[in-house]
């Protein structure tokens, strides 16, 4: 069956970026306000799901050539590394470090190792969600 999905395809191309950047925003906002890796990851994967809906899995895979299971692995390793790093310094597992830095353009910013952990969570959530969507969506 051939359906005319011109409008959704056109919209999806734009809306994808809006959702994706909003996901990044939510992810970074999690530093002090509601948000964080989990919600950000869900939003980011919803952006990809929108593309999958508008086009199909094969097209999306050529556009975003990411192996999502690898993404899970990388995310979990990143989270584990952040948590385990203090062990080498002699601090308890999961100790976080933070400080204020003056960065070019942004100015005074607080950087926190929890951010790295959250990046791991972000990747895991995107990986898991997309793996599930692909598993269900793959066989027609």
């Amino acid at each position, binding site marked *: 069956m051939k359906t005319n999905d011109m409008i959704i395809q056109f919209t999806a191309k734009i809306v994808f970026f809006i959702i994706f950047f909003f996901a990044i925003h939510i992810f970074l906002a999690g530093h002090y306000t509601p948000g964080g890796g989990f919600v950000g990851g869900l939003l980011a994967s919803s952006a990809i799901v929108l593309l999958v809906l508008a086009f199909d899995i094969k097209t999306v895979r050529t556009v975003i050539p990411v192996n999502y*299971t*690898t993404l*899970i*692995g990388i995310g*979990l*390793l990143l989270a*584990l590394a952040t948590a*385990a790093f203090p*062990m080498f310094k002699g*601090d*308890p*597992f*999961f*100790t*976080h470090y933070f400080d204020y830095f003056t960065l070019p353009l942004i100015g005074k910013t607080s950087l926190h190792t929890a951010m790295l952990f959250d990046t791991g969570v972000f990747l895991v959530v995107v990986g898991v969600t997309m793996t599930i969507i692909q598993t269900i969506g793959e066989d027609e």
Partner: protein
Amino acid sequence: MNNFLLLPIIIPFFFGMILLFGQKSLRFQRGGAMIGLIISFACAVALLFKVKNDGVQTVTFGGWPEPFGITMVSDMVSALLVTTTLLLAIFIVWYGFNSIGTAREHFYYYPAIMMILTGVNGAFTTGDIFNLFVFFEVLLMASYVLIVLGGTKKQLAGSIKYILINVISSALFVISVAYLYSVVGTLNMADIALKIAEVNQPGIITTIAVLFLLVFGLKAAIFPLYFWLPTSYAAAPPPVLALFGALLTKVGVYAIMRTYTLFFIHDLSYTHELLLWLSVLTIIAGCIGALAYFDIKQIIIYNIVIAVGVILFGVAQMNEDGLTGAMFYLIHDMIIKAALFMLIGIIVYKTGTTDLRKMGGLMRSSPVLGWFYLIAAFGLAGIPPLSGFVGKLLIAKGGFEAGNLGTSIFILASSLLVLLSVIRIFIYAFWGEEQPTKPILSKKQTTQLFIPTAIVIIISIAYGVGAEWLTPFMNDAGKTLADPSIYIDAVFKGE
């Protein structure tokens, strides 16, 4: 503060993540899994001796002060269980090399094994009740993957029930934790024990105790909550079955052991009496199941239920002998169940059926297997000097001390039924006329399967014969369980 106790949890996790990559290379998968297991086992043994020499080890995540951060506590009980878990995992993974099938090996079998070990070791080690829930979920998620891996019809049907029952029990767990939190206002297990002692266990705490028994009983398969166990476990292939049979229900047993010796110790006449009678009923139900079936998987699966009953009977005595015996028996049961599931796995691979009535005369074609099976069967029933004996003796002794004469004698007598149920397998499968078989694996492959199995059985013999050498460890464990203040002091003076 000592991060060392985390290594048996982190290393399997790390290797599990590494093994997520490179699913194509069988050598990488197998080698990675083996190396990871051996390193973690070495760490666990080192930890065991450290706990023996220096006492209980604790670490609180993030360096938060004690009742606020998540505490991990490695006392003798958890160190022993973690070591046994990793030891058995090595042999079960080895056993899996020749039997699980390359299709599964290419599809996240080893990462799932590593994750399940992370969850099991974490659950044994954690000192925070909500963290216990998280580790339960980690091991359950991995077990869902393992039980459906391969996706045969039988597995799908069995695993749906398994997942459903565990989702419900997880929800109940959250509910119980919420109730407990509303009463004591803390999640740290040592702190909970202190706060409960302050409020002196009114009715609400007893209610929560029963709720926790319900939650953990569902995982540990006690009467009347064991109904899901036979169908879902029978769906799993033999190596996975060995892993589940040796480890998963034991985590539930451990959780009951921990909560019922640490938290709910102020209304013994209700909570522990309930536990005692439930454990007796569990044994009866298990015996009926084990004797009723002609399916060898089912017989051994029902023997898990019996063993759970015996261990919990020891816990219900709440004296040092009973608890030491429960520890002895718990570790014995992990080893012997792994051995038995590996053995019947070989029998199934040799004969191509799980139905006893279609087997026979295996003694002629594989005598060594037969004799090893007999040793394992005697060990399970607790015939001295094999491994089940000391534990059961101490449990019965604890029962006599606590004045539970009749039930203790019943526990001893139940050994006979256990023996009968496993000897039936021996009689049907090994004696009699040879039956036509349709082997699933070749003779060479089953011989390769036999090597790890034989080693596990030899370990179980050593565990029985060398009980004298293990007694100091077990006494330590029993003491920690019988006297909660050791655990509590270690957490609060851990620095």
